[in-house]
């Protein structure tokens, strides 16, 4: 098992917890398994805790209770740098205060591989170019990131995450298990128009198949889930409503219960 979360709870009120004050929990009793080579979808209404769960699973936030194991080792025992070499996060949207070029952005993914005062070398450049290639953004390399369209930005941020995970290793035959990359995506298609949504789905599918990237993604996009997710976790009010193989869990009944909508409507969507 690549990633295994058991009975995880989370609250943003850390200080209150230390004082023993009862606090509202954003996540409660969550258990998720992510086998390597899988694509796991997190589904749930707005405010159900999807983004928080992604942050907890990716080690950005520390859980209030429960354990999360990456390759059998608690997430908290990895250093930031070591963790960054194993897993990468693509947030919902990315803004920069300054005008970085696309290549600059992708090279930032190499941070975890460099020493404190080290500049990127040819190897890092290779990794970045490979990531640009894999996301079909090579032609944008010298553009300024803020001037890109939403879809282009999304792909560049994914490229940055791939440079961070070093997908070239994933390509190598017989690569050790601990080098298998794990990618978290928070609503990757949310702000994209139809064309970019399709492109994004295609890209993710290709990354999964060609580069052996394990993914956990949150989304509202049922079609995306149907298309690329092996398993889904249905989240509602911070709890797991249902979890399992996509085909089994993603029934019209379950989805209509999840979102409080009429079943026939969901049937049409899932058709």
């Amino acid at each position, binding site marked *: 098992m690549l990633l295994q979360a058991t009975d995880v709870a989370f609250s943003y009120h850390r200080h209150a917890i230390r004082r023993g004050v009862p606090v509202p929990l954003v996540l409660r009793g969550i258990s998720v398994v992510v086998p390597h080579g899988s694509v796991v979808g997190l589904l749930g209404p707005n405010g159900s805790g999807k983004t928080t769960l992604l942050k907890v699973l990716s080690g*950005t936030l520390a859980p209030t209770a429960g354990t999360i194991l990456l390759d059998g080792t608690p997430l908290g025992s990895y250093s*930031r740098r070591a963790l960054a070499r194993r*897993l990468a996060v693509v947030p919902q949207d990315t803004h920069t205060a*300054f005008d970085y070029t696309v290549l*600059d952005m992708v090279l930032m*993914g190499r*941070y975890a591989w460099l020493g404190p005062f080290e500049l990127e070398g040819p190897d890092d450049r290779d990794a970045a170019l490979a990531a640009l290639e894999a996301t079909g953004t090579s032609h944008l390399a010298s553009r300024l990131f803020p001037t890109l369209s939403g879809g282009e930005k999304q792909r560049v941020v994914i490229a*940055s995450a791939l440079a961070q995970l070093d997908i070239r290793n994933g390509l190598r035959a017989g690569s050790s298990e601990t080098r298998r990359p794990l990618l978290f995506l928070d609503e990757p298609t949310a702000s994209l128009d139809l064309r970019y949504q399709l492109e994004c789905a295609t890209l993710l599918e290709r990354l999964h198949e060609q580069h052996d990237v394990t993914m956990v993604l949150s989304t509202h996009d049922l079609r995306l889930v149907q298309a690329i997710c092996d398993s889904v976790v249905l989240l509602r009010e911070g709890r797991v409503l249902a979890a399992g193989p996509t085909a089994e869990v993603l029934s019209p009944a379950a989805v209509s219960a999840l979102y409080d909508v009429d079943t026939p409507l969901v049937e049409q969507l899932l058709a």
Partner: protein
Amino acid sequence: MMLLRRRRTIVIAGLASTLVAVVLAPFAGSTSIAVARVFDPSVPFADNLDAQIFFLARLPRALAAAVVGGTLAAAGVVFQGLLQNPLTTPYTLGVSAGASLGAMCAITFGAWLPFGTVTAASLAGAGLAVFIVYALARARHRGISTTVLLLAGVTLNAFFSALILFVQYVSDFAQTFRAIRWLMGDLDVAGYATLGAAAPLLLVAFAVFAWIARPLDLLTLGADAAASRGVDVTTVQRAAFFSASLATGAAVSIAGPIGFVGIIVPHLVRLVVGADHRIVLPAATCLGATFLVLCDTIARTVLAPLELPVGIITAVIGGPFFLWLLLRAR
């Protein structure tokens, strides 16, 4: 990725321009000196007026301008990166207000303060401001909240400004005049002792700047995004805040709160070399140093034998430039 050769060219050009400015500036001044006599070893230094003007008045002053200009520009870059806001100045978080309050107190109540000089008092004031802002920014957050930092800084600026007004209110005319003149900036350090005293602090600050240059790039993507790329966000924020604050405090205690260097120089540099902090920081340091040496040379020659406060020169150049940046940013 910027080619290594281009990085090297930029840094060498920057260092060269700073060096040329510092070496040439002492040849200009309000008095005419005989250059041949300045470097004449047969005249004892104690009797050599030209040499004393060159080595005791002008050269330390040019060095001070370079040190202060470079420090303010670099601190500006770091603060802008830390707060993820390109309009931040080294004075946004209240460091200079604290330093000014310290200086005002020393000028007004000098006889009763335990530490003698205005420089020491302003450094102490800067330290106090840094401590208060940091304590506030920490109190309600894991790590440092940049929003709270910004609000605390702005509030502290206003509060210290009020205290400065109060101190000026209770001081007499002559003191008020001196205090106002101090606020306009003055690089006439009259020797190397002040610079020597500030050097260790500034060396530490610049070492930290070099270490956090790359993490600052990642921080501009947001704290969570930086963390997920392997940055220890809290440590970097803390290092950036303290190093830039202390460097600013040292610069202000040497020369007063000289404005605009810390904002126009980083912007100009980014226009030319891009956003990568590992090249922006050294380039801004060099350009800031060169810029302030030039401004101070103008300040001490244009109205000779009177001197224009250097802060007025930087403001006259910097103000319109800053407005242009604001309009351009839209």
